[in-house]
Protein backbone atom coordinates (compact mmCIF):
# COMPACT_ATOMS: atom_id res chain seq x y z
CA UNK A 1 0.00 0.00 0.00
CA UNK A 2 2.75 2.46 0.98
CA UNK A 3 4.72 1.19 -1.98
CA UNK A 4 1.65 1.67 -4.17
CA UNK A 5 1.43 5.27 -2.98
CA UNK A 6 5.05 5.87 -3.79
CA UNK A 7 4.64 4.75 -7.38
CA UNK A 8 1.26 6.33 -7.84
CA UNK A 9 2.33 9.74 -6.62
CA UNK A 10 4.72 10.52 -9.50
CA UNK A 11 2.28 8.92 -11.93
CA UNK A 12 -0.51 11.13 -10.67
CA UNK A 13 1.74 14.18 -10.73
CA UNK A 14 2.74 13.59 -14.35
CA UNK A 15 -0.85 12.96 -15.35
CA UNK A 16 -1.71 16.39 -14.00
CA UNK A 17 0.41 18.14 -16.58
CA UNK A 18 -0.81 16.21 -19.60
CA UNK A 19 -3.40 18.83 -20.33
CA UNK A 20 -1.77 22.00 -19.02
CA UNK A 21 -4.67 24.16 -20.14
CA UNK A 22 -7.26 22.23 -18.21
CA UNK A 23 -5.02 21.81 -15.20
CA UNK A 24 -4.35 25.54 -15.37
CA UNK A 25 -8.06 26.34 -15.42
CA UNK A 26 -8.74 24.17 -12.38
CA UNK A 27 -5.76 25.63 -10.56
CA UNK A 28 -6.95 29.15 -11.26
CA UNK A 29 -10.50 28.36 -10.16
CA UNK A 30 -9.29 26.89 -6.86
CA UNK A 31 -6.63 29.55 -6.28
CA UNK A 32 -8.93 32.51 -7.00
CA UNK A 33 -11.71 30.96 -4.95
CA UNK A 34 -9.50 30.47 -1.92
CA UNK A 35 -7.83 33.83 -2.43
CA UNK A 36 -11.19 35.60 -2.40
CA UNK A 37 -12.20 33.81 0.79
CA UNK A 38 -8.94 34.61 2.60
CA UNK A 39 -8.82 38.18 1.39
CA UNK A 40 -12.46 38.95 2.16
CA UNK A 41 -12.12 37.32 5.54
CA UNK A 42 -9.13 39.51 6.40
CA UNK A 43 -10.89 42.53 4.96
CA UNK A 44 -14.13 41.96 6.84
CA UNK A 45 -12.30 41.44 10.10
CA UNK A 46 -10.27 44.60 9.56
CA UNK A 47 -13.39 46.49 8.55
CA UNK A 48 -15.30 45.40 11.62
CA UNK A 49 -12.35 46.13 13.87
CA UNK A 50 -11.99 49.55 12.35
CA UNK A 51 -15.68 50.39 12.56
CA UNK A 52 -15.75 49.16 16.15
CA UNK A 53 -12.77 51.33 17.02
CA UNK A 54 -14.40 54.29 15.35
CA UNK A 55 -17.71 53.79 17.11
CA UNK A 56 -16.12 53.32 20.51
CA UNK A 57 -13.99 56.41 20.05
CA UNK A 58 -16.90 58.53 18.86
CA UNK A 59 -18.93 58.67 22.09
CA UNK A 60 -19.42 55.19 23.41
CA UNK A 61 -16.12 54.57 25.17
CA UNK A 62 -15.28 51.09 26.47
CA UNK A 63 -18.31 51.32 28.68
CA UNK A 64 -20.64 53.59 30.61
CA UNK A 65 -22.20 53.88 34.02
CA UNK A 66 -25.75 55.14 34.50
CA UNK A 67 -28.31 55.34 37.24
CA UNK A 68 -30.50 52.27 37.41
CA UNK A 69 -33.39 52.81 34.97
CA UNK A 70 -31.71 55.44 32.81
CA UNK A 71 -31.11 53.02 29.95
CA UNK A 72 -34.82 52.18 29.81
CA UNK A 73 -35.94 55.80 30.01
CA UNK A 74 -33.08 58.24 29.48
CA UNK A 75 -34.63 61.34 30.98
CA UNK A 76 -33.82 64.01 33.50
CA UNK A 77 -35.63 61.95 36.12
CA UNK A 78 -33.10 59.13 35.94
CA UNK A 79 -29.88 60.94 36.64
CA UNK A 80 -27.13 60.11 39.14
CA UNK A 81 -24.69 61.93 41.34
CA UNK A 82 -21.08 62.30 40.23
CA UNK A 83 -18.92 59.29 41.22
CA UNK A 84 -18.47 58.92 44.97
CA UNK A 85 -15.20 58.06 46.65
CA UNK A 86 -15.42 54.32 45.94
CA UNK A 87 -16.36 54.65 42.30
CA UNK A 88 -13.87 57.45 41.67
CA UNK A 89 -10.99 55.36 43.01
CA UNK A 90 -12.16 52.40 40.95
CA UNK A 91 -12.20 54.66 37.89
CA UNK A 92 -8.67 55.81 38.69
CA UNK A 93 -7.45 52.21 38.66
CA UNK A 94 -4.63 51.46 36.18
CA UNK A 95 -6.88 49.44 33.89
CA UNK A 96 -8.89 52.57 33.09
CA UNK A 97 -7.15 54.91 30.67
CA UNK A 98 -9.54 57.80 31.14
CA UNK A 99 -13.04 58.73 32.17
CA UNK A 100 -15.40 61.69 32.26
CA UNK A 101 -19.02 62.47 33.06
CA UNK A 102 -21.76 63.79 30.84
CA UNK A 103 -25.26 65.13 31.09
CA UNK A 104 -27.32 63.45 28.39
CA UNK A 105 -31.00 64.27 28.00
CA UNK A 106 -33.52 64.16 25.19
CA UNK A 107 -34.64 67.51 23.88
CA UNK A 108 -35.46 69.64 20.91
CA UNK A 109 -33.38 72.07 18.92
CA UNK A 110 -35.07 74.88 17.13
CA UNK A 111 -34.01 77.39 14.46
CA UNK A 112 -36.06 80.07 12.75
CA UNK A 113 -37.02 77.44 10.20
CA UNK A 114 -37.28 74.13 11.89
CA UNK A 115 -37.63 72.20 15.09
CA UNK A 116 -35.79 68.89 15.35
CA UNK A 117 -35.48 66.27 18.05
CA UNK A 118 -31.98 66.01 19.50
CA UNK A 119 -29.99 64.53 22.32
CA UNK A 120 -28.45 67.30 24.38
CA UNK A 121 -25.03 66.38 25.72
CA UNK A 122 -23.30 68.44 28.38
CA UNK A 123 -19.57 67.74 28.44
CA UNK A 124 -16.34 68.67 30.13
CA UNK A 125 -14.41 69.63 26.96
CA UNK A 126 -10.93 68.84 28.29
CA UNK A 127 -11.76 65.32 29.42
CA UNK A 128 -14.09 64.80 26.46
CA UNK A 129 -11.25 65.45 24.01
CA UNK A 130 -9.29 62.57 25.55
CA UNK A 131 -12.20 60.16 25.24
CA UNK A 132 -14.23 61.14 22.21
CA UNK A 133 -13.17 61.83 18.63
CA UNK A 134 -15.86 64.47 18.10
CA UNK A 135 -13.87 67.41 19.56
CA UNK A 136 -11.30 66.62 16.87
CA UNK A 137 -13.87 66.65 14.08
CA UNK A 138 -14.68 70.35 14.10
CA UNK A 139 -15.25 71.43 10.50
CA UNK A 140 -16.09 75.07 11.22
CA UNK A 141 -15.65 77.27 14.26
CA UNK A 142 -14.41 75.79 17.52
CA UNK A 143 -15.21 73.16 20.12
CA UNK A 144 -16.42 74.13 23.59
CA UNK A 145 -14.00 75.98 25.86
CA UNK A 146 -15.03 74.76 29.28
CA UNK A 147 -17.81 73.15 31.21
CA UNK A 148 -19.31 76.57 31.70
CA UNK A 149 -19.34 77.32 27.98
CA UNK A 150 -23.01 78.00 27.27
CA UNK A 151 -22.73 77.83 23.51
CA UNK A 152 -23.46 74.80 21.32
CA UNK A 153 -21.61 72.65 18.85
CA UNK A 154 -23.89 71.10 16.22
CA UNK A 155 -23.43 68.42 13.59
CA UNK A 156 -22.94 69.41 9.97
CA UNK A 157 -26.07 67.72 8.71
CA UNK A 158 -28.22 69.14 11.51
CA UNK A 159 -26.96 72.62 10.67
CA UNK A 160 -28.04 72.07 7.07
CA UNK A 161 -31.46 70.80 8.14
CA UNK A 162 -31.97 73.67 10.56
CA UNK A 163 -30.74 76.11 7.91
CA UNK A 164 -28.64 77.75 10.55
CA UNK A 165 -24.91 78.37 10.75
CA UNK A 166 -21.91 79.55 12.68
CA UNK A 167 -22.62 82.73 14.70
CA UNK A 168 -26.38 82.18 14.61
CA UNK A 169 -28.48 81.18 17.59
CA UNK A 170 -30.62 78.12 18.22
CA UNK A 171 -33.03 77.34 21.00
CA UNK A 172 -32.71 74.16 23.05
CA UNK A 173 -35.73 72.79 24.87
CA UNK A 174 -35.91 69.99 27.39
CA UNK A 175 -37.79 68.86 30.45
CA UNK A 176 -36.06 70.24 33.53
CA UNK A 177 -35.57 68.94 37.05
CA UNK A 178 -38.91 70.40 38.18
CA UNK A 179 -40.77 68.61 35.40
CA UNK A 180 -41.37 71.80 33.46
CA UNK A 181 -39.92 72.74 30.09
CA UNK A 182 -36.68 74.69 29.98
CA UNK A 183 -35.95 76.72 26.93
CA UNK A 184 -32.84 78.74 26.27
CA UNK A 185 -31.06 80.22 23.30
CA UNK A 186 -27.46 79.22 22.57
CA UNK A 187 -24.77 80.55 20.21
CA UNK A 188 -23.63 78.13 17.52
CA UNK A 189 -19.84 78.26 17.90
CA UNK A 190 -18.79 75.08 16.16
CA UNK A 191 -19.90 72.52 13.60
CA UNK A 192 -18.60 68.96 13.70
CA UNK A 193 -18.27 66.55 10.82
CA UNK A 194 -18.93 62.92 11.76
CA UNK A 195 -21.43 60.52 10.21
CA UNK A 196 -24.97 61.70 9.46
CA UNK A 197 -26.62 59.64 12.17
CA UNK A 198 -24.39 61.15 14.83
CA UNK A 199 -24.65 64.65 13.36
CA UNK A 200 -28.45 64.46 13.37
CA UNK A 201 -28.64 63.35 16.97
CA UNK A 202 -26.08 64.99 19.25
CA UNK A 203 -25.93 68.62 20.29
CA UNK A 204 -23.03 69.52 22.60
CA UNK A 205 -22.76 72.20 25.25
CA UNK A 206 -20.75 72.69 28.46
CA UNK A 207 -21.59 70.29 31.29
CA UNK A 208 -22.10 73.00 33.92
CA UNK A 209 -24.01 75.08 31.39
CA UNK A 210 -26.34 72.16 30.69
CA UNK A 211 -26.84 71.57 34.41
CA UNK A 212 -27.79 75.21 34.85
CA UNK A 213 -30.15 75.03 31.88
CA UNK A 214 -31.87 71.95 33.31
CA UNK A 215 -31.97 73.24 36.88
CA UNK A 216 -29.68 70.45 38.14
CA UNK A 217 -27.40 70.58 41.12
CA UNK A 218 -24.40 68.70 39.82
CA UNK A 219 -26.26 65.55 38.74
CA UNK A 220 -25.03 63.79 35.66
CA UNK A 221 -26.45 61.18 33.30
CA UNK A 222 -23.41 59.02 32.74
CA UNK A 223 -19.81 58.19 33.44
CA UNK A 224 -17.91 57.20 30.27
CA UNK A 225 -14.69 55.27 30.62
CA UNK A 226 -12.03 54.05 28.23
CA UNK A 227 -9.85 51.05 29.06
CA UNK A 228 -6.18 50.63 28.32
CA UNK A 229 -6.65 47.04 27.18
CA UNK A 230 -9.75 45.87 25.39
CA UNK A 231 -8.87 42.36 26.60
CA UNK A 232 -9.56 43.40 30.19
CA UNK A 233 -13.12 44.52 29.39
CA UNK A 234 -15.07 41.96 31.40
CA UNK A 235 -12.83 42.23 34.46
CA UNK A 236 -12.81 46.01 34.45
CA UNK A 237 -16.57 46.20 34.14
CA UNK A 238 -16.95 43.77 37.01
CA UNK A 239 -14.59 45.81 39.20
CA UNK A 240 -16.53 49.00 38.51
CA UNK A 241 -19.83 47.27 39.19
CA UNK A 242 -18.43 46.15 42.54
CA UNK A 243 -17.46 49.72 43.35
CA UNK A 244 -20.91 51.03 42.44
CA UNK A 245 -23.45 48.35 43.32
CA UNK A 246 -26.40 50.72 43.01
CA UNK A 247 -25.51 51.82 39.50
CA UNK A 248 -25.85 50.27 36.08
CA UNK A 249 -22.36 49.50 34.74
CA UNK A 250 -22.21 48.23 31.17
CA UNK A 251 -19.57 47.44 28.62
CA UNK A 252 -19.92 48.66 25.04
CA UNK A 253 -21.15 45.18 24.14
CA UNK A 254 -24.28 45.74 26.20
CA UNK A 255 -24.64 49.33 25.09
CA UNK A 256 -24.36 48.77 21.35
CA UNK A 257 -25.87 45.45 20.45
CA UNK A 258 -25.43 46.07 16.75
CA UNK A 259 -21.73 46.49 17.14
CA UNK A 260 -21.55 43.44 19.34
CA UNK A 261 -23.38 41.34 16.77
CA UNK A 262 -21.07 42.45 13.97
CA UNK A 263 -18.78 39.54 14.65
CA UNK A 264 -21.46 36.95 14.12
CA UNK A 265 -22.86 38.77 11.08
CA UNK A 266 -19.43 38.60 9.60
CA UNK A 267 -19.12 34.94 10.34
CA UNK A 268 -22.38 34.36 8.47
CA UNK A 269 -21.23 36.52 5.58
CA UNK A 270 -17.98 34.61 5.26
CA UNK A 271 -19.89 31.33 5.38
CA UNK A 272 -22.22 32.44 2.61
CA UNK A 273 -19.26 33.55 0.56
CA UNK A 274 -17.52 30.27 1.24
CA UNK A 275 -20.64 28.45 0.08
CA UNK A 276 -20.85 30.41 -3.16
CA UNK A 277 -17.16 30.08 -3.93
CA UNK A 278 -17.26 26.42 -3.11
CA UNK A 279 -20.28 25.77 -5.33
CA UNK A 280 -18.52 27.47 -8.25
CA UNK A 281 -15.32 25.61 -7.53
CA UNK A 282 -17.11 22.28 -7.26
CA UNK A 283 -18.74 22.83 -10.65
CA UNK A 284 -15.36 23.71 -12.12
CA UNK A 285 -13.55 20.76 -10.61
CA UNK A 286 -16.22 18.19 -11.44
CA UNK A 287 -16.52 19.49 -15.00
CA UNK A 288 -12.85 19.52 -15.85
CA UNK A 289 -12.08 16.27 -14.07
CA UNK A 290 -15.03 14.44 -15.64
CA UNK A 291 -13.82 15.65 -19.03
CA UNK A 292 -10.34 14.44 -18.19
CA UNK A 293 -11.69 11.03 -17.22
CA UNK A 294 -13.80 10.67 -20.36
CA UNK A 295 -10.81 11.53 -22.50
CA UNK A 296 -8.77 8.85 -20.80
CA UNK A 297 -11.38 6.07 -20.93
CA UNK A 298 -9.13 3.89 -23.05
CA UNK A 299 -6.19 4.48 -20.74
CA UNK A 300 -8.18 3.51 -17.67
CA UNK A 301 -9.35 0.46 -19.64
CA UNK A 302 -5.69 -0.36 -20.24
CA UNK A 303 -4.88 -0.03 -16.55
CA UNK A 304 -7.81 -2.30 -15.71
CA UNK A 305 -6.80 -4.79 -18.43
CA UNK A 306 -3.27 -4.91 -17.04
CA UNK A 307 -4.71 -5.94 -13.72
CA UNK A 308 -5.20 -2.74 -11.78
CA UNK A 309 -8.21 -3.12 -9.51
CA UNK A 310 -11.05 -0.59 -9.66
CA UNK A 311 -10.20 0.66 -6.17
CA UNK A 312 -6.64 1.33 -7.24
CA UNK A 313 -7.83 3.31 -10.26
CA UNK A 314 -10.06 5.34 -7.97
CA UNK A 315 -7.17 5.92 -5.59
CA UNK A 316 -4.92 7.03 -8.43
CA UNK A 317 -7.41 9.57 -9.76
CA UNK A 318 -8.15 10.70 -6.19
CA UNK A 319 -4.42 11.32 -5.67
CA UNK A 320 -4.34 13.28 -8.92
CA UNK A 321 -7.23 15.41 -7.66
CA UNK A 322 -5.65 15.85 -4.25
CA UNK A 323 -2.47 17.10 -5.88
CA UNK A 324 -4.33 19.31 -8.32
CA UNK A 325 -6.51 20.93 -5.67
CA UNK A 326 -3.58 21.01 -3.25
CA UNK A 327 -1.48 22.99 -5.70
CA UNK A 328 -4.43 25.30 -6.32
CA UNK A 329 -4.87 25.78 -2.59
CA UNK A 330 -1.17 26.59 -2.11
CA UNK A 331 -1.37 29.04 -4.99
CA UNK A 332 -4.42 30.70 -3.45
CA UNK A 333 -2.70 30.96 -0.08
CA UNK A 334 0.37 32.59 -1.62
CA UNK A 335 -1.84 34.92 -3.64
CA UNK A 336 -3.81 35.94 -0.55
CA UNK A 337 -0.66 36.39 1.55
CA UNK A 338 0.90 38.57 -1.13
CA UNK A 339 -2.27 40.64 -1.50
CA UNK A 340 -2.58 41.19 2.23
CA UNK A 341 1.11 42.01 2.47
CA UNK A 342 0.89 44.47 -0.41
CA UNK A 343 -1.81 46.47 1.40
CA UNK A 344 -0.19 46.24 4.81
CA UNK A 345 0.27 50.02 4.83
CA UNK A 346 -3.50 50.26 5.02
CA UNK A 347 -6.23 50.73 2.46
CA UNK A 348 -7.35 54.35 2.28
CA UNK A 349 -11.10 54.36 2.43
CA UNK A 350 -11.64 58.04 3.07
CA UNK A 351 -13.51 58.69 -0.17
CA UNK A 352 -15.52 55.51 0.18
CA UNK A 353 -16.14 56.13 3.87
CA UNK A 354 -17.63 59.55 3.14
CA UNK A 355 -19.94 57.98 0.59
CA UNK A 356 -21.17 55.46 3.15
CA UNK A 357 -21.42 57.68 6.18
CA UNK A 358 -24.04 55.51 7.81
CA UNK A 359 -21.41 52.93 8.53
CA UNK A 360 -18.92 54.27 10.97
CA UNK A 361 -15.57 53.11 9.79
CA UNK A 362 -12.04 54.30 10.13
CA UNK A 363 -10.83 55.86 6.97
CA UNK A 364 -7.83 53.60 6.70
CA UNK A 365 -8.27 49.87 7.05
CA UNK A 366 -5.34 47.73 8.08
CA UNK A 367 -5.44 44.10 6.98
CA UNK A 368 -3.77 41.49 9.08
CA UNK A 369 -2.90 37.80 8.59
CA UNK A 370 -5.27 35.55 10.43
CA UNK A 371 -3.27 32.38 11.06
CA UNK A 372 -6.41 30.43 11.90
CA UNK A 373 -8.06 31.44 8.64
CA UNK A 374 -4.95 30.43 6.70
CA UNK A 375 -5.28 26.92 8.11
CA UNK A 376 -9.04 26.54 8.28
CA UNK A 377 -10.14 27.75 4.85
CA UNK A 378 -7.40 26.09 2.77
CA UNK A 379 -7.99 22.84 4.65
CA UNK A 380 -11.72 23.08 4.10
CA UNK A 381 -11.37 23.83 0.39
CA UNK A 382 -8.90 21.01 -0.06
CA UNK A 383 -11.07 18.47 1.74
CA UNK A 384 -14.30 19.50 0.08
CA UNK A 385 -12.55 19.66 -3.31
CA UNK A 386 -11.29 16.12 -2.93
CA UNK A 387 -14.72 15.02 -1.85
CA UNK A 388 -16.46 16.31 -4.99
CA UNK A 389 -13.59 15.00 -7.11
CA UNK A 390 -14.47 11.49 -5.93
CA UNK A 391 -17.26 11.57 -8.48
CA UNK A 392 -14.96 11.75 -11.52
CA UNK A 393 -12.61 9.33 -9.77
CA UNK A 394 -15.50 6.89 -9.39
CA UNK A 395 -16.23 7.21 -13.10
CA UNK A 396 -12.62 6.36 -13.86
CA UNK A 397 -12.82 3.26 -11.68
CA UNK A 398 -15.91 2.16 -13.62
CA UNK A 399 -14.06 2.15 -16.96
CA UNK A 400 -14.24 -1.37 -18.36
CA UNK A 401 -11.08 -3.27 -19.22
CA UNK A 402 -12.53 -4.13 -22.63
CA UNK A 403 -12.05 -0.45 -23.56
CA UNK A 404 -8.36 -1.23 -23.88
CA UNK A 405 -9.03 -3.43 -26.91
CA UNK A 406 -11.04 -0.76 -28.65
CA UNK A 407 -9.01 0.37 -31.55
CA UNK A 408 -8.82 3.95 -32.60
CA UNK A 409 -11.00 4.69 -35.58
Amino acid at each position, binding site marked *: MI*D*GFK*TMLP*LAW*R*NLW*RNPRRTGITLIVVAIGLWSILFFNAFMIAWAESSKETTLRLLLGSGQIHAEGYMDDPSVEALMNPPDQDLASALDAPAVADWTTRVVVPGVVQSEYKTLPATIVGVDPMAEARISSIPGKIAEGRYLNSGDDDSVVLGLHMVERLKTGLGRRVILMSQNAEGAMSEQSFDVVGIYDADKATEDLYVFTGRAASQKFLGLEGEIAQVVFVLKEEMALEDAVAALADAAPALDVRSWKDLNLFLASMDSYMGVFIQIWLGIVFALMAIGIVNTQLMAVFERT*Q*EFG*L*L*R*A*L*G*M*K*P*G*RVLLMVAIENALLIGVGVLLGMVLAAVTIWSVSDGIDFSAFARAMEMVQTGEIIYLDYEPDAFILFPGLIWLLGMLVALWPAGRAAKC*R*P*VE*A*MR*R*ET
Partner: protein
Amino acid sequence: MDPIVACRGLSKTFGKGELAVHALRDVDLDIMPGDIATLAGPSGSGKTTLLNMIGALDEPTSGEVSVDGQPLGGLSRSRLSELRLSKIGFVFQSYNLIPVLSARENIEFVLQLQGVSTGERRNRALEALKEVGLAGMEDRRPGKMSGGQQQRVAVARALVSRPSIVLADEPTANLDTRNALELVDLMRNLNREHGTTFLIGTHDVRVMEHSMRHIEMVDGRIDSDARGSA
Protein backbone atom coordinates in the same frame (compact mmCIF):
# COMPACT_ATOMS: atom_id res chain seq x y z
CA MET B 1 -1.09 -32.00 -20.92
CA ASP B 2 -3.77 -29.65 -19.71
CA PRO B 3 -4.68 -26.71 -21.94
CA ILE B 4 -3.77 -23.21 -20.78
CA VAL B 5 -6.98 -21.86 -22.22
CA ALA B 6 -10.14 -23.86 -22.65
CA CYS B 7 -13.28 -22.41 -24.27
CA ARG B 8 -16.47 -24.45 -24.21
CA GLY B 9 -19.62 -23.50 -26.08
CA LEU B 10 -18.60 -19.86 -26.00
CA SER B 11 -21.13 -17.38 -27.41
CA LYS B 12 -21.30 -13.63 -27.31
CA THR B 13 -24.21 -11.59 -28.53
CA PHE B 14 -24.18 -7.81 -28.66
CA GLY B 15 -27.51 -6.04 -28.56
CA LYS B 16 -30.99 -7.53 -28.52
CA GLY B 17 -33.73 -8.67 -30.89
CA GLU B 18 -33.54 -7.43 -34.48
CA LEU B 19 -30.27 -5.61 -33.80
CA ALA B 20 -28.51 -8.51 -32.08
CA VAL B 21 -25.01 -9.23 -33.37
CA HIS B 22 -23.76 -12.75 -32.77
CA ALA B 23 -20.06 -12.07 -32.52
CA LEU B 24 -19.26 -15.56 -31.25
CA ARG B 25 -21.33 -18.68 -31.89
CA ASP B 26 -20.64 -21.77 -29.82
CA VAL B 27 -16.87 -21.68 -29.93
CA ASP B 28 -14.81 -24.58 -28.54
CA LEU B 29 -11.08 -23.96 -28.37
CA ASP B 30 -8.07 -25.27 -26.45
CA ILE B 31 -4.72 -23.49 -26.39
CA MET B 32 -1.89 -25.76 -25.30
CA PRO B 33 1.24 -24.66 -23.43
CA GLY B 34 3.94 -23.52 -25.84
CA ASP B 35 1.49 -22.86 -28.67
CA ILE B 36 2.08 -19.89 -30.87
CA ALA B 37 -1.25 -19.62 -32.60
CA THR B 38 -2.72 -17.09 -34.98
CA LEU B 39 -6.39 -16.31 -34.90
CA ALA B 40 -7.25 -15.16 -38.39
CA GLY B 41 -10.36 -14.31 -40.33
CA PRO B 42 -12.05 -11.43 -42.04
CA SER B 43 -12.84 -8.25 -40.24
CA GLY B 44 -15.86 -8.71 -38.02
CA SER B 45 -15.43 -12.46 -37.74
CA GLY B 46 -15.07 -12.30 -33.96
CA LYS B 47 -11.32 -12.40 -33.34
CA THR B 48 -11.22 -9.48 -30.95
CA THR B 49 -14.34 -10.66 -29.18
CA LEU B 50 -12.82 -14.09 -28.60
CA LEU B 51 -9.56 -12.57 -27.29
CA ASN B 52 -11.60 -10.38 -24.92
CA MET B 53 -13.33 -13.45 -23.51
CA ILE B 54 -10.09 -15.37 -23.06
CA GLY B 55 -8.38 -12.34 -21.55
CA ALA B 56 -11.16 -11.89 -18.99
CA LEU B 57 -11.79 -8.42 -20.35
CA ASP B 58 -15.44 -9.13 -21.13
CA GLU B 59 -18.01 -11.74 -20.20
CA PRO B 60 -19.50 -14.27 -22.60
CA THR B 61 -23.25 -14.44 -23.13
CA SER B 62 -23.02 -18.18 -22.63
CA GLY B 63 -20.35 -20.84 -22.41
CA GLU B 64 -17.28 -21.05 -20.29
CA VAL B 65 -13.65 -19.99 -20.43
CA SER B 66 -10.98 -21.47 -18.18
CA VAL B 67 -7.46 -20.16 -17.85
CA ASP B 68 -4.94 -22.50 -16.25
CA GLY B 69 -7.86 -24.62 -15.17
CA GLN B 70 -9.57 -21.69 -13.45
CA PRO B 71 -13.10 -21.07 -14.78
CA LEU B 72 -13.66 -17.32 -15.20
CA GLY B 73 -17.44 -17.40 -14.82
CA GLY B 74 -18.66 -15.86 -11.60
CA LEU B 75 -15.40 -14.24 -10.58
CA SER B 76 -15.60 -10.73 -9.17
CA ARG B 77 -14.08 -7.74 -10.97
CA SER B 78 -11.34 -7.72 -8.41
CA ARG B 79 -10.54 -11.43 -8.80
CA LEU B 80 -10.57 -11.06 -12.58
CA SER B 81 -8.06 -8.21 -12.21
CA GLU B 82 -5.79 -10.47 -10.20
CA LEU B 83 -6.13 -13.23 -12.76
CA ARG B 84 -5.23 -10.92 -15.64
CA LEU B 85 -2.32 -9.58 -13.67
CA SER B 86 -0.84 -12.97 -12.89
CA LYS B 87 -1.75 -15.11 -15.87
CA ILE B 88 -2.28 -12.99 -18.97
CA GLY B 89 -0.04 -10.66 -20.93
CA PHE B 90 -1.62 -8.26 -23.42
CA VAL B 91 -0.34 -6.65 -26.58
CA PHE B 92 -2.94 -4.41 -28.12
CA GLN B 93 -3.08 -2.91 -31.57
CA SER B 94 -2.51 0.59 -30.28
CA TYR B 95 -2.57 2.61 -27.09
CA ASN B 96 -0.60 -0.03 -25.30
CA LEU B 97 1.51 2.09 -23.04
CA ILE B 98 0.85 4.63 -20.31
CA PRO B 99 1.93 7.86 -21.99
CA VAL B 100 3.39 9.57 -18.90
CA LEU B 101 5.64 6.64 -18.02
CA SER B 102 8.99 5.78 -19.61
CA ALA B 103 9.58 2.42 -21.30
CA ARG B 104 11.09 1.02 -18.11
CA GLU B 105 8.35 2.45 -15.90
CA ASN B 106 5.68 0.99 -18.18
CA ILE B 107 7.19 -2.44 -17.71
CA GLU B 108 7.74 -1.95 -14.00
CA PHE B 109 4.13 -0.91 -13.63
CA VAL B 110 2.73 -4.45 -13.83
CA LEU B 111 5.48 -5.73 -11.54
CA GLN B 112 4.57 -3.06 -9.07
CA LEU B 113 0.93 -4.16 -9.24
CA GLN B 114 2.19 -7.67 -8.50
CA GLY B 115 4.03 -6.38 -5.47
CA VAL B 116 7.54 -7.09 -6.72
CA SER B 117 10.23 -5.20 -4.78
CA THR B 118 11.79 -2.07 -6.24
CA GLY B 119 15.21 -3.52 -6.96
CA GLU B 120 13.92 -6.67 -8.58
CA ARG B 121 11.41 -4.64 -10.60
CA ARG B 122 14.16 -2.56 -12.10
CA ASN B 123 16.36 -5.53 -12.95
CA ARG B 124 13.56 -7.49 -14.55
CA ALA B 125 12.36 -4.48 -16.52
CA LEU B 126 15.83 -3.77 -17.90
CA GLU B 127 16.28 -7.46 -18.67
CA ALA B 128 12.97 -7.53 -20.56
CA LEU B 129 13.90 -4.43 -22.54
CA LYS B 130 17.18 -6.02 -23.52
CA GLU B 131 15.34 -9.12 -24.60
CA VAL B 132 13.14 -7.18 -27.00
CA GLY B 133 16.14 -5.29 -28.34
CA LEU B 134 15.48 -1.97 -26.65
CA ALA B 135 18.46 -1.74 -24.31
CA GLY B 136 19.33 1.93 -23.86
CA MET B 137 15.76 3.08 -24.55
CA GLU B 138 14.55 2.60 -20.98
CA ASP B 139 14.02 6.27 -20.23
CA ARG B 140 12.07 7.12 -23.38
CA ARG B 141 8.41 7.93 -23.10
CA PRO B 142 6.03 6.31 -25.61
CA GLY B 143 5.61 9.59 -27.48
CA LYS B 144 9.32 9.55 -28.28
CA MET B 145 9.34 6.01 -29.68
CA SER B 146 8.38 4.58 -33.06
CA GLY B 147 5.32 2.34 -33.44
CA GLY B 148 7.56 -0.72 -33.67
CA GLN B 149 9.46 0.23 -30.55
CA GLN B 150 6.23 0.83 -28.66
CA GLN B 151 4.96 -2.63 -29.62
CA ARG B 152 8.24 -4.14 -28.41
CA VAL B 153 7.84 -2.42 -25.08
CA ALA B 154 4.33 -3.86 -24.93
CA VAL B 155 5.72 -7.33 -25.61
CA ALA B 156 8.37 -6.82 -22.94
CA ARG B 157 5.68 -5.77 -20.48
CA ALA B 158 3.49 -8.74 -21.42
CA LEU B 159 6.42 -11.09 -20.76
CA VAL B 160 7.92 -9.58 -17.66
CA SER B 161 5.11 -10.79 -15.41
CA ARG B 162 5.69 -14.37 -16.66
CA PRO B 163 2.10 -14.94 -17.77
CA SER B 164 0.60 -18.26 -18.81
CA ILE B 165 -0.38 -16.78 -22.15
CA VAL B 166 0.20 -13.61 -24.14
CA LEU B 167 -2.81 -12.35 -26.07
CA ALA B 168 -2.08 -10.00 -28.94
CA ASP B 169 -4.76 -8.32 -31.01
CA GLU B 170 -3.59 -7.06 -34.39
CA PRO B 171 -0.16 -6.23 -32.95
CA THR B 172 1.30 -5.45 -36.39
CA ALA B 173 -1.63 -3.50 -37.83
CA ASN B 174 0.05 -0.14 -37.38
CA LEU B 175 3.55 -1.27 -38.36
CA ASP B 176 5.46 -1.23 -41.64
CA THR B 177 6.68 -4.53 -43.05
CA ARG B 178 10.14 -4.41 -41.53
CA ASN B 179 8.86 -3.61 -38.05
CA ALA B 180 6.05 -6.12 -38.41
CA LEU B 181 8.47 -8.90 -39.34
CA GLU B 182 10.79 -7.97 -36.50
CA LEU B 183 7.92 -8.12 -34.04
CA VAL B 184 6.83 -11.52 -35.37
CA ASP B 185 10.42 -12.77 -35.13
CA LEU B 186 10.61 -11.52 -31.60
CA MET B 187 7.48 -13.38 -30.53
CA ARG B 188 8.61 -16.48 -32.38
CA ASN B 189 11.98 -16.42 -30.60
CA LEU B 190 10.44 -15.84 -27.21
CA ASN B 191 8.16 -18.77 -27.88
CA ARG B 192 11.05 -21.00 -28.88
CA GLU B 193 13.41 -19.94 -26.12
CA HIS B 194 11.06 -19.57 -23.16
CA GLY B 195 8.11 -21.61 -24.30
CA THR B 196 5.87 -18.56 -23.98
CA THR B 197 2.37 -19.27 -25.26
CA PHE B 198 1.00 -16.75 -27.76
CA LEU B 199 -2.44 -16.27 -29.22
CA ILE B 200 -2.35 -13.60 -31.89
CA GLY B 201 -5.47 -12.19 -33.48
CA THR B 202 -4.51 -10.95 -36.93
CA HIS B 203 -5.39 -10.81 -40.57
CA ASP B 204 -1.79 -10.01 -41.44
CA VAL B 205 -0.28 -12.78 -43.63
CA ARG B 206 3.21 -11.78 -42.43
CA VAL B 207 2.18 -12.96 -39.01
CA MET B 208 0.31 -16.10 -40.10
CA GLU B 209 3.32 -17.36 -42.01
CA HIS B 210 5.27 -17.62 -38.77
CA SER B 211 2.71 -19.37 -36.63
CA MET B 212 2.73 -23.02 -35.65
CA ARG B 213 -0.99 -23.21 -35.40
CA HIS B 214 -3.49 -21.42 -37.55
CA ILE B 215 -7.06 -20.86 -36.44
CA GLU B 216 -9.44 -19.38 -38.96
CA MET B 217 -12.69 -17.70 -37.90
CA VAL B 218 -15.73 -16.92 -40.00
CA ASP B 219 -18.93 -15.34 -38.71
CA GLY B 220 -18.15 -15.96 -35.07
CA ARG B 221 -17.29 -19.64 -35.62
CA ILE B 222 -14.02 -21.47 -35.85
CA ASP B 223 -13.81 -22.47 -39.47
CA SER B 224 -10.49 -24.30 -39.37
CA ASP B 225 -7.74 -25.08 -36.89
CA ALA B 226 -4.52 -26.42 -38.37
CA ARG B 227 -1.06 -27.14 -37.05
CA GLY B 228 1.80 -26.45 -39.39
CA SER B 229 5.51 -26.05 -39.00
CA ALA B 230 6.59 -22.55 -39.62
